[in-house]
């Protein structure tokens, strides 16, 4: 496909990285998504913030072509995620919520696998794998089995796997869940460096206020399958008064039911991640 066809109107109107319109999806009797709307500009770090069960992960699953929505459209750089799934996949680097690196392989082999699955040309394979590992500070540990990695290292390895394709959009589902504070700061730093160096668009979900505040240019606050507020962290806070924190914003829009609203499925996968981190 030509460059023009891939990015329609590239010269005139900048195509948004993600355009999500009237997105709805139902799992049995649960309305997981109920008309989600947001637009992520090219080069933005955009956060989906919300309690467990708000629909963040379901939105992500639609966006990375894993789930076909009941209603609504999602476009990634102008490409429909349902009708142009293959092209969308080539533009995205995806890191799921669970720690999902293959423990029976080395770090290098894990990244190599994804380089191959994204059809990185043979002549560039080695250099691209090394480049991705270096970006995440894993050159030293590259040839050690992943079973010996710490939780933070596994997360950075997964980022390397997602980056080896040089994606235009990086999608991170709860990137620091279950990590200790030092490892979390490490992941933040890498994402910020990456952003500063490449201007890559990043879409992440989180339920940590500090993460949303520090990393994101703009935030969409999700609650019960809807976007209930969308703005920069600063303006979201200002809207509630001078001394308001993001916690206050969160509580204002979602009520006080932060603890009760998590679904069993979310809790299960979170526990699984926590267990794996030891």
């Amino acid at each position: 496909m030509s460059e023009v066809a891939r990015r329609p109107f590239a010269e005139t109107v900048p195509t948004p990285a993600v355009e999500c319109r009237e997105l709805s999806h139902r799992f049995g009797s649960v309305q997981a998504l109920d008309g989600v709307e947001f637009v992520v500009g090219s080069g933005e770090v955009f956060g989906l913030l919300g309690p467990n069960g708000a629909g963040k992960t379901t939105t992500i699953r639609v966006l990375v072509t894993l789930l076909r929505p009941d209603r609504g459209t999602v476009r990634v750089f102008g490409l429909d995620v349902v009708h142009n799934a293959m092209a969308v996949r080539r533009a995205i680097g995806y890191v799921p919520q669970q720690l999902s690196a293959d423990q029976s392989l080395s770090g290098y082999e894990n990244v190599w696998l994804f380089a191959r699955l994204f059809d990185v040309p043979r002549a560039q394979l080695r250099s691209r794998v090394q480049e991705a590992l270096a970006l995440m500070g894993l050159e030293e540990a590259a040839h050690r089995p992943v079973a010996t990695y710490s939780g933070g290292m596994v997360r950075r390895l997964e980022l390397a796997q997602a980056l080896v394709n040089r994606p235009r959009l990086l999608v991170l589902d709860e990137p620091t869940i279950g990590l200790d504070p030092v490892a979390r700061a490490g992941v933040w730093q890498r994402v910020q460096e990456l952003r500063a160096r490449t201007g890559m668009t990043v879409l992440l979900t989180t339920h940590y206020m500090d993460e949303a505040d520090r990393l994101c240019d703009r935030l969409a606050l999700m609650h019960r399958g809807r976007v209930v507020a969308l703005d920069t962290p600063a303006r979201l806070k200002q809207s509630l008064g001078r001394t308001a924190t993001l916690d206050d914003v969160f509580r204002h829009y979602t009520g006080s039911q932060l603890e009760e609203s998590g679904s069993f499925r979310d809790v299960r996968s979170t526990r699984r991640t926590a267990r794996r981190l030891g």
Partner: protein
Amino acid sequence: MSAAHAELRAASAEVRPHWWRLLPSRVWTFWVVELYRIRHDRTELYTRAIQPALWLVIFGETFNRLRVIPTGGLPYLDYMAPGIIAQSGLFIAIFYGIQIIWERDAGVLAKLLATPTPRVALVSGKAFAAGLRAAIQSVIVFALSALLGVSMNWNPLHLAAAVLVVMVGSAFFSTLSMTIAGVVLSRERLMGIGQALTMPLFFASNALYPVHVMPGWLQALSVVNPLSYEVEALRGILVGTPANLLLDGLVLAAALVAGVTASSTLLGRLAR
């Protein structure tokens, strides 16, 4: 470094191979990954050699003396060795679906499915990875057979053909396993069903005795059992018994295509 970063932004989507090139490319990729796995941990290769060794030594040596099974004049060990080679592949492949359920639980499957890999290519890659592991396992059983004095055709071309048959047969059984995985969605249930399946697959085949000694209904079962065709081909290639190699090859290939179709159709249930 920074030059590379400058390229980072728009460099994705630079390569778009046709779908007919994706399939062999993905199969090759999962082959190499399987070799990496085997290199990191060879113990499974050795522990899985114990069972075929016991079959050959205990069952084989005993029935070698009993001479109750009509083998057409062959020593029983020679007759049985190809059956045990096929069985060792079957046992590896029939539990291969456990890996895909594990990958589902660990989020690996979601990540694989979010790459530009058609489901058929992903399942084929996994199937041939199982086939490769079974083929490497079969080489160990070849060596065991040689140690026990089985007189097989050691012509390298025949051995290569036998390894190919084991690979395709085991690839099929792994797709059967992945299909069941797509239905039951849990490791425990897959273990149970896998164990329940191996017995009829193994005993309702010509692996240990010729089909004509079976009761009629069991013979019928053997006719639709791909393992029988795998064993017939192996026996023909390695021991020189009469075999319709063309039919055997066609049946195994057709079974593999059906298995890949079924398991890639059900993969969506696992990805959900």
